[in-house]
């Protein structure tokens, strides 16, 4: 598969299926691993970095993790390609912006990705549509076991899996669930969610992980600590909190319908109208519009658009995707024009 083929469609995790998929977009687990016999990357010289990259790339290629693995060498990838991979959650921003020998292997459905030489030698990631942490764990655990047959990962019985940053040590596991919470955002109850979640040792972040801001009412909830609890204990903490947040969101939506039905419906229909007719849409505006329309579909107001189409538009209208589709770099005005026409076409074809 080539990177340009990616710009027309999206990964399987956006198809809008799975448990609680009206609110839970996706579930993701990431494991940090380092191979023994090499320093962590901050102390590795160029030769060691190359060796780690080759060792991991070859081991992954030989293992039967998933069908049709593609490998992208990020050292030589263009800026637009790297941006596209970040937008699809196949690599992290840090991985895109890093330097030295590094790359990513990902499966055809884009549910599995293996980042080589990110902050740690290896970061394994599995994403699933909907609220599916348990199944996601089963898959990633299997991949980790499979690779452990051929690689020795740095591990101590005291501290568990040893990572470059002590914030990931132990399980090396970061699990996160992406939620669409427009009503809680609108009613400003979202702050209460942040506080409650914080007390459980979980954190809330924006769409693109660490330090990014919330947009399109999309939030990621993930575990802060990685040591002192088993993987399944950590996952059950997240699993126990998500249904409470989703029912809180549903309550907030009901309240909005009861208290300000006209305003709410007006806002949703106007957003839909804008998506179908506007000639220029900024990247921030589109997230707000899509968020409103998505809620409109959930509330049963809008029936002629599939959840998958909407979920995909969140990704396909991002700057990297538009530029890849157009085949050249675009300034923000050009992007706004192309974004608007792309959305019109997608919504017209229904």
């Amino acid at each position, binding site marked *: 598969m080539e990177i340009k083929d990616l710009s027309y469609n999206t990964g399987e995790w956006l198809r809008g299926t799975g448990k609680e998929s009206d609110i839970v977009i996706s579930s993701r687990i990431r494991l940090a691993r380092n191979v023994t016999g090499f320093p962590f990357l*901050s102390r590795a010289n160029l030769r060691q970095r190359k060796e780690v990259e080759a060792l991991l790339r070859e081991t992954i290629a030989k293992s039967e993790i998933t069908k049709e693995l593609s490998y992208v060498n990020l050292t030589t990838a263009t800026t637009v390609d790297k941006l596209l991979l970040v937008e699809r959650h196949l690599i992290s921003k840090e991985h895109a912006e890093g330097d030295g020998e590094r790359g990513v292997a990902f499966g055809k459905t884009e549910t599995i990705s293996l980042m080589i030489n990110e902050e740690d030698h290896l970061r394994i990631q599995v994403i699933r549509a909907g609220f599916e942490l348990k199944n996601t764990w089963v898959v990633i655990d299997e991949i980790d076991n499979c690779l452990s047959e051929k690689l020795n*990962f*740095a591990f101590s*019985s005291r501290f568990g899996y040893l990572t470059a*940053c002590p*914030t990931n*040590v132990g399980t090396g596991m970061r699990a996160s669930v992406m939620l669409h919470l427009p009503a809680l955002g609108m009613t400003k109850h979202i*702050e209460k969610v942040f506080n409650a979640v914080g007390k459980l040792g979980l*954190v809330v972040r924006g769409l693109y992980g660490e330090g990014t*801001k919330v947009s399109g009412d999309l939030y990621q909830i993930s575990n802060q600590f990685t040591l002192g609890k088993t993987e399944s204990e950590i996952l059950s903490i997240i699993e126990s909190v998500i249904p409470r947040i989703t029912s809180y969101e549903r309550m907030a939506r009901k309240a909005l319908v009861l208290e300000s039905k006209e305003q709410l419906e007006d806002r949703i229909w106007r957003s839909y109208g804008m998506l179908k007719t506007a000639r220029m849409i900024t990247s921030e505006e589109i997230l707000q519009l899509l968020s409103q329309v998505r809620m409109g579909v959930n509330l049963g107001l809008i029936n002629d658009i599939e959840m998958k189409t909407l979920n995909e538009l969140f990704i396909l209208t991002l700057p990297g995707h538009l530029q890849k589709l157009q085949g050249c770099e675009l300034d923000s005005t050009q992007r706004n024009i192309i974004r608007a026409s792309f959305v019109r076409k997608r919504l017209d074809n229904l």
Partner: protein
Amino acid sequence: MKCESCGKKIATVHLTEIVGKEKKEKHLCEECAHNVTSHFPKAPTPSDILTSIINQVSPEIEEMSKTTCPVCGLSYLEFRTQGRLGCPMDYDVFKKGLLPLIERMHGSSQHVGKVPPNASDEVVRKNELMQLRKELNKAVEKEDYEKAAQIRDKIYGFSGNINNGD
């Protein structure tokens, strides 16, 4: 000037954001500006947390400041400024300095999770023992003494001398 976020109202709030080395200006209407500031979760990144914890935990610094890892050459002071370790050995070499950090970060300093399937038997058994000890604590906390007794028997069942902790 129109608001950059909603594209509808007039931008009355002008924010300057420093992203890396770049300075970005944002022009927003009052409503959108409010949303930006109030919806911004104050969630610090793991590295922020690390830095703040590093700064809080300092008594061991004097003693640790002379320590350097013989394998990768990282000094404890370098770790404190960069927040990244240099090699797996560092967890051992800087243990004294790391323990309070890790305790604070994770609320624990003992791994009880997955053990690599290819780990030595000893490592596997140590880990099982750790998990049993944890279960025992839980049972005692819940005053479930019957269960506690069962777990204790299992712990005694572990033959051989396995060291505590590390």
